[in-house]
């Protein structure tokens, strides 16, 4: 495996830098996603959303989630008398940690990744599937029938939608011929439709992308798949009994999950840090300046890496925007509709997709 930009000769230094960047990303990106949810949803419903809280002179509610966080910390930490105290307290952590661990393998820019694992996609999918355990632990330990119902619904939903998620990703792995997330991005840069037109995998894998995106909404319990936390029926599912910082952990886990699954979708289907299919930002800038007659510029690898991070972030938050848009658009699916959609539509479609991709791959 090629070392990335963050692999310094000193092991301790590279671990420290990677941890710092990961924690920084973890603490900021979910907040941006949460802020987007507040504002985008508000504007789509023709209201303003948070307007007052701000950071310094910038208002428009940009400080809303920071203020929320401060509020959550001050709240009383209530554990129901009948609850199983240990499991109840551990559950928010179990829900949150997988999202943090997956960030280890996400490649954000050229050479900018924590670790380029040989089985990166597989690692990301495996670890992110653990977070439902936190949901189940919370559901059971709360000693509340609404929580338990939410947990059962969440488990049924996860079992149904884990398969389309993996099938969508497996088709991409088949196409790229590698499990490493970094190599998949590079494979998309070299990919040509019919050997001519450079394109990301999103076009040949339109079905796979759809499967992956729908299944990730279901994994995150996002609308229209929010049956497990349906507020009009079971209050708030597994989170009903949670208050204060533990509740904040669950919300953070949801937003971090949105960012992480959008990032995996970006890497698998949308070409990662390439701004156009097969074109990086420095190359694009050089094309534009060459058009005006200026000479090509040399970009330092770090600068090129950071520009790539910008492109990746843009794609990630476009997908997060679509997730919020879905929430404002679609009504909630009923439990039987939800199960039927996965087992009768998405999974057969995913299997068919893999067969078609495999045939195309052999013929090409």
């Amino acid at each position: 495996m090629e070392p990335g930009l963050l692999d310094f000769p000193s092991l301790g230094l590279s671990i420290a830098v990677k941890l710092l960047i990961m924690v920084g990303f973890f603490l900021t990106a979910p907040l941006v996603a949460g802020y987007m949810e507040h504002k985008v949803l508000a504007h789509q419903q023709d209201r303003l959303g948070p307007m007052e809280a701000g950071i310094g002179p910038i208002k428009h509610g940009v400080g809303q989630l920071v203020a929320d966080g401060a509020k959550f910390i001050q709240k009383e930490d209530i554990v129901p008398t009948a609850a199983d105290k240990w499991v109840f307290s551990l559950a928010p952590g179990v829900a949150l940690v997988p999202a943090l661990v997956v960030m280890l393998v996400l490649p954000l820019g050229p050479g900018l990744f924590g670790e380029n694992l040989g089985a990166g996609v597989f690692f990301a999918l495996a670890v992110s599937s653990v977070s439902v355990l936190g949901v189940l632990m919370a559901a059971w330990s709360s000693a509340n029938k609404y929580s338990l119902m939410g947990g059962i619904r969440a488990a049924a939903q996860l079992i149904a939608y884990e398969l389309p998620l993996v099938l969508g990703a497996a088709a991409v792995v088949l196409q790229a011929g590698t499990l490493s997330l970094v190599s998949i991005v590079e494979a998309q840069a070299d990919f040509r439709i019919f050997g001519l037109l450079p394109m990301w995998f999103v076009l040949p894998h339109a079905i796979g992308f759809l499967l992956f995106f729908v299944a990730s909404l279901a994994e995150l319990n996002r609308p229209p798949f929010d049956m497990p936390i349906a507020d009009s029926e079971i209050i708030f599912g597994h989170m009903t009994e949670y208050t204060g910082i533990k509740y904040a952990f669950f919300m953070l886990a949801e937003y971090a999950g949105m960012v992480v699954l959008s990032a995996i979708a970006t890497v698998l289907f949308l070409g990662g840090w390439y701004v156009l299919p097969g074109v990086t930002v420095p190359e694009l800038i050089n094309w534009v300046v060459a058009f005006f007659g200026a000479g090509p510029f040399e970009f330092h690898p770090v600068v090129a890496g950071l520009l790539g991070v910008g492109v990746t972030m843009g794609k990630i938050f476009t997908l997060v925007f679509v997730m919020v848009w879905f929430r404002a658009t679609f009504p909630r699916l009923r439990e039987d509709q939800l199960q039927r959609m996965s087992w009768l539509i998405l999974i057969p479609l995913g299997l068919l997709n893999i067969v078609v991709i495999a045939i195309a791959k052999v013929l090409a």
Partner: protein
Amino acid sequence: MNDVLTAADIFMLLVAVTGGAAAISVVISRNVVHAALFLVVTLLSVAGTFLMLGAEFLAWTQVLVYVGAVIVLILFGLMLTRAPIGPMAQHNENGHLAFGVSTLLFLFLCLVIFRAFGDVRLDLQYTGAAALGEVIYVEWAFPFMALGFMLTVALIGAIILARREEGEGPVTDLADEIPARDSRDVTASPGAISAGARAPGARAAGGGSAPREVQQ
């Protein structure tokens, strides 16, 4: 034998001790849900062991399949049936027998492993997913396909066993079902469910009017 413990050895030891302790907790825990959660720790430590042995792909498979799916199914089953909070009086008369059998099995396995390997040191190397795939799908393709066939047969068998035969098990209350619009059965028109359609076995008896049921 005065080898110095490397970081890998210490990690391996830690994983083994954690896994072993969790495995004992699974058995002695008085609460079924706690037992299932301890099982998560055991399965994760098995994944850690695979990782230390250089089988990266196998380790993540362990996490995806066992922690992500099997445990979820176990917890799902427990929550659907019985999941009281707090200790539960387990009616277990075979406890002593089970303890004896498992101790004997443990000693037997220890003996076999020590006799087979003894002081042999394995030269461990990293096995990537590509190398693993080559072995499974090229070298061992036939056993792999045979296994796949066997699992499919087991799956179909499970469906046949679970499937309700005609006139067996609780009869579905047809009033709960949304009647099919395109059925030739006049009683199945929306909002008009007659007493005849409600009777057990009516769908099988009404010749030609049971398009949704496969006749055995």
